[in-house]
């Protein structure tokens, strides 16, 4: 580079002659290396290599450590882990406090699917939608990744060092320390909290649930001396009366109760069929499945409970319960005569079934709950359908204790507040006032998975681990201890509350040791040390059942009267407000989960929004249509929210119902959900978030948080906000003015009354003379004559099929999210759903039938019917959808050119087209993808495959074991997760398989059987027991 001028390249004679400035090749480089042009100019190749080598080494050495030490292949591979092969780990769901057992399918150390643990006593193999979606929550890119100090990222050591000084000062001083958590079901965590608080002069643990059952807990403390919820054992029940309790949907333990309901309702025998009557004001999932549904305004609940208890007492020949004031006070608002007659009838029914009857009530009012307890006591429910001996610990929140804490906070009487796993600022009515008082707390520490409204105020924010990356022991129901173990190397620098508090209390043990110690203590305490499993055995099993301790609590109804707190009925022109929780969001944090946001509400089928549900008559009176933005103004406080209205059949005419848990901090990110294009609209609303927060309208009454006592004014604003609803037409009947003669109603859903079913010997339909009675086979044989083409598939091997029992299905939508997780179904955002381009492979059709004010609801899971004569197959020009030898209708993504003819020609409209390349949330969320299933690209068709990847895996396993495939070896994701076990999959050619027997069942039918497309899915007609009403 230092050669003579003539050695340099030249481009023109002028340049060569030197009349033009010579091009210097180093010029550009010098400019680039601004700092050291001279050094570079002097650099020879040798020294460059030196520098490069040094630089590379320095860069390497500067890293703290190699990212993953285990990247080195294992010299001795653990026997259980084969790279690329899935294995299962038992753990416990963290989706809510119900504590269902979970089996996590993992591969190469990463969880890929969560499924119900079949042996687990709570979930019994089922897992709800929120539980399934926990997989995505684990991979949420917006999870709090590192500790924050006043909003700035720091690390745990720094936080610990900073806090330990303050803690020491507090221990020495007044030490007014409060720990606020959601219901804590982990004994070891409780112990750690207790030990931590014991170090202070004034330490207190406050538990609080956003979905509070405080009154029911207090009522049991009063009537049974035990502050717990009885465990509901529906299995043997014969009569269930639920008053404003969505126990199958947004309840305390919906999976457990759905399984119980299924077990309690055997259509084959009338005496084993539990009749379910629901009294409620809004249409809940539970109400939609009741045999009889009675509309009941929130202000009538107390009176109904009291009338029911009185009537039962009269039947039992005992004095009426004390909680009822002897002389009817204003509390005893006179009930409408028909409602009284209804209650009387219910009392009779319950009394007849005493010993197998139960009254449930979700109202958060102490006196009402006491009345319900007395009714249950009279019915002999305690010890049969209600178990207080091994009570539920799934709710332990105490609204009164929370109220005290809020008082203290307002007074500035708290030195340290540790908030863990809950967000009081967002979930309490006076969030802003609370935020102000929280700012005055000297030391506010928040442990959370996300930066929520409370965490944002905290001086120290500590990330909480996800349930799949934590050690835990969960005793959600007394005597059932389930475990969690990290099945995932933690993605983030999170530390459990237990570990955090233990280390602050000077306990250096890690989570595993703490949990193991807690387990041995528990075993010793229950006197099961000799018989119980070792910790390792318990971990492997996922749970242990411990013997009951002590005697069952005895009821002792005190004579002190408590007034039922009910709101007065709203004045003229006002409506009663009912705030409720959503089926998809058992915990408020689930609002951060796009799978759950895009899960159609089981009742309204609306996604990505909350809304003001109004009865059709009320909406008509107020001139409001679905999608009109209404203003809900609370009286007299004046608090107001504006949100879109929804006309909801079956809703009480004087009630407006709105879901809680929306408009939350952090949902701003969903503005980016879904494809971006010319006419695309954002998923978030006008407030920049998903839905509208209505927590400000909750009310605080006598230490209980109530969402059902406000009176509100509902007015139109004139604006519109189109709700994204997966279903446009909600009836099995075509619009009246278009109804052809005799064809107004389509029988996609068939239903039969219990009485008729028993009379017909288990057949849903009256057998027609001449027609075959043998169900499936008969139908196929008679249709065989009408074949155009010969069957081009051999009769050997299985013919996969499915049976769906509509009598068992509750519409809970667990299958929908289960399918989404298993089959990598993308989230498409609000606008795409509004345009009817949702991608879910399985949908649940919900139809209303009858009077819109008091309709019957039907839920029908609908997925690819895997037709034997598939209309989609003949029309594809490129053979992208073909029939397999085992009867599957296969979609070949690689071959698909996307003509959409198959979808047009599908009578069930179950095919889904990739209209866009759907943005996945982040590379992070891609870890939740199932590697067995292709991620589909833009422009191809897709649909339910009957989980063909599972069929193949089961076939391979069977072949490896040298055995034939057995019935039950293959379980598609929808069947596996169904809490009601409504779905059965198997081989229709095997006459002994469960699915074959169900397919030939008297209640079995195929949807659109008349088209002779020969669907492989058979539905079993719904069975209801409407009471006296007998159908023809």
């Amino acid at each position, binding site marked *: 580079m230092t050669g003579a001028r003539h050695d340099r390249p030249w481009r023109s004679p002028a340049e060569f002659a030197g009349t033009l400035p010579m091009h210097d090749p180093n010029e550009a480089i010098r400019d680039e290396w601004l700092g050291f042009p001279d050094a570079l100019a002097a650099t020879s190749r040798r020294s460059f290599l030196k520098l490069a080598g040094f630089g590379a080494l320095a860069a390497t050495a500067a890293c703290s450590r190699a990212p993953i030490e285990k990247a080195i292949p294992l010299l001795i591979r653990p026997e259980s882990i084969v790279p690329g092969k899935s294995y299962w780990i038992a753990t416990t769901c963290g989706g809510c406090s119900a504590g269902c057992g979970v089996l996590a399918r993992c591969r190469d150390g990463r969880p890929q699917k969560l499924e119900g643990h079949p042996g687990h006593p709570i979930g019994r193999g089922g897992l709800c939608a929120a539980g399934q979606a926990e997989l995505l929550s684990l991979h949420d890119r917006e999870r709090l990744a590192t500790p924050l100090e006043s909003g700035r990222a720091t690390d745990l050591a720094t936080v610990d060092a900073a806090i330990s000084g303050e803690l020491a000062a507090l221990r020495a001083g007044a030490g007014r320390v409060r720990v606020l958590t959601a219901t804590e079901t982990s004994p070891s965590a409780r112990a750690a909290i207790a030990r931590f608080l014991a170090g202070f002069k004034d330490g207190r643990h406050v538990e609080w649930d956003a979905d509070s059952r405080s009154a029911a807990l207090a009522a049991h403390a009063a009537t049974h001396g035990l502050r717990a919820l009885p465990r509901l054992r529906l299995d043997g029940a014969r009569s269930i009366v639920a008053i404003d309790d969505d126990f199958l949907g947004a309840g305390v333990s919906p999976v457990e109760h759905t399984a119980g309901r299924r077990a309690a309702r055997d259509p084959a025998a009338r005496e084993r069929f539990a009749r379910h009557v629901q009294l409620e004001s809004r249409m809940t999932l539970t109400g939609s499945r009741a045999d009889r549904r009675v509309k009941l305004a929130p202000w009538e609940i107390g009176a109904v409970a009291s009338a029911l208890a009185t009537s039962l007492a009269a039947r039992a020949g005992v004095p009426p319960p004390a909680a009822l004031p002897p002389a009817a006070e204003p509390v005893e608002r006179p009930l409408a005569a028909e409602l009284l007659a209804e209650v009387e009838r219910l009392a009779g029914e319950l009394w007849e079934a005493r010993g197998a009857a139960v009254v449930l009530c979700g109202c958060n009012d102490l006196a009402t709950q006491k009345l319900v307890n007395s009714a249950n006591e009279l019915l002999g429910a305690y010890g049969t359908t209600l178990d207080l001996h091994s009570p539920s610990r799934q709710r332990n929140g105490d609204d009164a204790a929370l109220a005290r804490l809020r008082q203290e906070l307002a007074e500035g009487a708290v030195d340290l507040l540790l908030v863990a796993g809950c967000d009081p600022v967002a979930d309490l009515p006076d969030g802003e006032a609370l935020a102000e008082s929280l700012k005055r707390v000297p030391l506010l520490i928040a442990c959370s998975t996300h930066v929520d409204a409370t965490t944002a105020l905290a001086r120290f924010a500590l990330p909480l681990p996800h349930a799949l990356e934590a050690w835990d022991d969960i005793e959600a129901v007394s005597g059932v201890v389930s475990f969690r173990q990290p099945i995932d190397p933690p993605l983030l620098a999170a530390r459990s509350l237990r570990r955090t508090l233990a280390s602050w209390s000077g306990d250096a043990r890690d989570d595993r040791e703490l949990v193991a110690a807690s387990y041995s203590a528990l075993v010793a305490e229950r006197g099961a040390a000799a018989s119980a499993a070792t910790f390792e055995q318990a971990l492997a099993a996922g749970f242990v059942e411990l013997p009951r301790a002590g005697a069952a609590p005895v009821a002792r109804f005190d004579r002190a009267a408590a007034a039922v707190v009910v709101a007065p009925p709203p004045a003229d022109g006002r409506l009663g407000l009912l705030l409720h929780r959503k089926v998809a969001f058992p915990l408020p944090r689930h609002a951060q989960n796009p799978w759950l946001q895009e899960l159609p509400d089981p009742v309204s089928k609306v996604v990505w929004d909350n809304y003001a549900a109004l009865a059709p008559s009320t909406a008509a009176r107020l001139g409001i249509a679905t999608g009109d933005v209404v203003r809900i103004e609370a009286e007299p406080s004046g608090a107001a929210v504006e949100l879109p209205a929804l006309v909801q059949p079956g809703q009480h005419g004087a009630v407006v119902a709105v879901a809680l848990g929306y408009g939350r901090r952090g949902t701003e990110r969903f503005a980016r959900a879904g494809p971006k294009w010319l006419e695309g609209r954002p998923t978030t609303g006008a407030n920049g978030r998903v839905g509208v927060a209505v927590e400000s309208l909750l009310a605080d009454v006598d230490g209980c948080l109530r969402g059902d006592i406000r009176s509100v004014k509902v007015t139109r604003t004139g604006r519109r906000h189109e709700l994204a609803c997966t279903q446009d*037409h909600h009836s099995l009947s075509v619009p009246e003015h278009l109804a052809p003669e005799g064809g107004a109603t389509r029988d996609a859903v068939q239903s039969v009354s219990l009485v008729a079913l028993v009379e017909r010997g288990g057949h849903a339909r009256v057998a027609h003379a001449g027609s075959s009675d043998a169900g499936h086979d008969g139908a196929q044989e008679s249709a065989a004559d009408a074949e155009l083409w010969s069957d081009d598939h051999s009769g050997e091997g299985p013919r996969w099929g499915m049976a769906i029992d509509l009598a068992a299905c509750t519409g809970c939508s667990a299958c929908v999210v289960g399918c989404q997780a298993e089959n990598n179904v993308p989230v498409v955002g609000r606008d795409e759903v509004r345009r009817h381009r949702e991608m879910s492979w399985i949908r649940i059709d919900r139809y209303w039938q009858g009077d819109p004010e008091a309709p019957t609801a039907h839920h029908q899971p609908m997925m690819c019917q895997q037709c034997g004569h598939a209309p989609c197959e003949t*029309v594809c020009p490129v053979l992208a959808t073909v029939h397999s030898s085992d009867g599957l209708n296969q979609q070949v993504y690689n071959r698909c050119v996307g003509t959409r003819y198959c979808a047009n020609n599908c009578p*069930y409209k179950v095919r889904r087209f990739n209209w*866009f390349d759907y943005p996945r949330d982040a590379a992070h969320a891609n870890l939740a993808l199932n590697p067995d299933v292709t991620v589909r690209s833009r422009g191809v068709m897709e649909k339910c495959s009957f989980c063909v990847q599972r069929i193949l895996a089961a076939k391979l396993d069977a072949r490896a074991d040298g055995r034939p495939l057995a019935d039950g070896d293959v379980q598609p994701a929808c069947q596996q997760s169904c809490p009601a076990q409504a779905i059965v999959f198997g081989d229709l050619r095997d006459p002994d398989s469960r699915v074959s027997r169900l397919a030939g069942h008297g209640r079995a039918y195929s949807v659109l059987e008349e088209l002779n497309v020969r669907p492989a899915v058979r539905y079993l007609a719904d069975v209801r027991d409407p009471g006296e009403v007998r159908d023809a």
Partner: protein
Amino acid sequence: MHEAPLILGGKRVADVTADVCGPIERGPTGRWRRAFAAAVALLLLGVVAVGYQIAVGIGTWGLDRTVGWAFDITNFVFWVGIGHAGTLISAVLLLFRQKWRTSINRSAEAMTIFAVCCAGIFPVIHMGRPWLAFWVFPYPNERGPLWVNFRSPLLWDVFAIGTYFTISLVFWYIGLIPDLATLRDRASGLKRRLYGWFALGFSGSARTWSRYETACTLLAALATPLVVSVHSVVSTDFATSVIPGWHATIFPPYFVIGAVFSGFAMVLTLMLIARRVMRFEAYITPRHVEAMCKVLVFTGSIVGLAYLTELFTAWYSGNPYERFTFLNRAFGPSGWCYWVMVACNVITPQLLWFRRIRTDLRLVFVVTLLINVGMWFERFVIIVTSLERDFLTSAWTSYQPTLVEYATLAGSFGLFFTLFLLFCRWLPMIAMAEVKTVLPSQDHGHELVSDGLTAPAAASAPLPAALPLAGAGR
């Protein structure tokens, strides 16, 4: 013979050549430039829309999980239908010796080809992955070989449209050869070489005329069955499906007659514009218009009958799905489309029974425009209303088109008019050679002077001999 002459103004053979070649040789007029600019602008709009759609996804159309086809296939069937008239006029009317067709057949054939071009775009761009469109062709490949699905009507479409396009193009081109030779003879330089190349050495000798005539007749015979087959096959896209409103045995004849109807309407629309713009009043006379109006009344009435038959079949079938589909079509949320269709396709052509209306070219122009609109709506109604509400009520949706779809439709018109205007500019719009055979002057045995040549003039002479020998003198 004819009660009135087919060509007015006492045109001589030389006048025909001058009139037809004139616009080509004189170069573009201002009017042409403006029309061309507008057409290209529309075309560009369509190109942008289609480019955007291919880049971003089919989601930029208003389709949904229930309505998988809407504007795309509507446009496709509409354009294929338009493309029907050319072949019908050239082939069938040739075989039936309808001499009045000579003035319009060239343009009608050109229109056919351009319409089929427009139609051909839609099956490609409507695919989710149009870059793989070649997979619909059965060609030897390394995937097994993996063949196409011969049971799929979409594949039949590929063959039907492909065949139709090929035959139409060849027929049109062969018909052009004598006129190309005339242009060649009148041109010089590059133009002369180009026209000459395309004229395939047509010399005007008796032998070339004889070959030409034979080829035309053969191709006409080949093309005739295609008139029936193309739209019959297109109709099977719907007829072979299970969707109520699509699944109908009446579809093949119904579609064919609809196509003839819409094709004639479009030919008439274009002819009425062209005779004004290109000053072809003498060649495209009210008599031509009237003849075509009669075809419109006839086909329009059959279309009306087909609508009634559909309704009757639905009612008579007793099938509640079928019955509902037609009630929904007429009185459902998209019912207005149905009534637009009925008003335009059934009621409007009935006006043409009146001679006063038939001979008022302005009214005829309006009628043909309405028929074009109505025929587009017919396809839209069949496709969209049937899909919107089929078997399971839970899956019902309502379709809303997007801007991209409107732009794509506009773009297809842009392409059509761009091609048509290019055709007007570079090729003889009227088949000179054929028109000369029907010149009224022939009947009077006038001496004909053409291109400085004296041609034998004898009405009774065989067809080729009666023609001026294009290029014979050079």
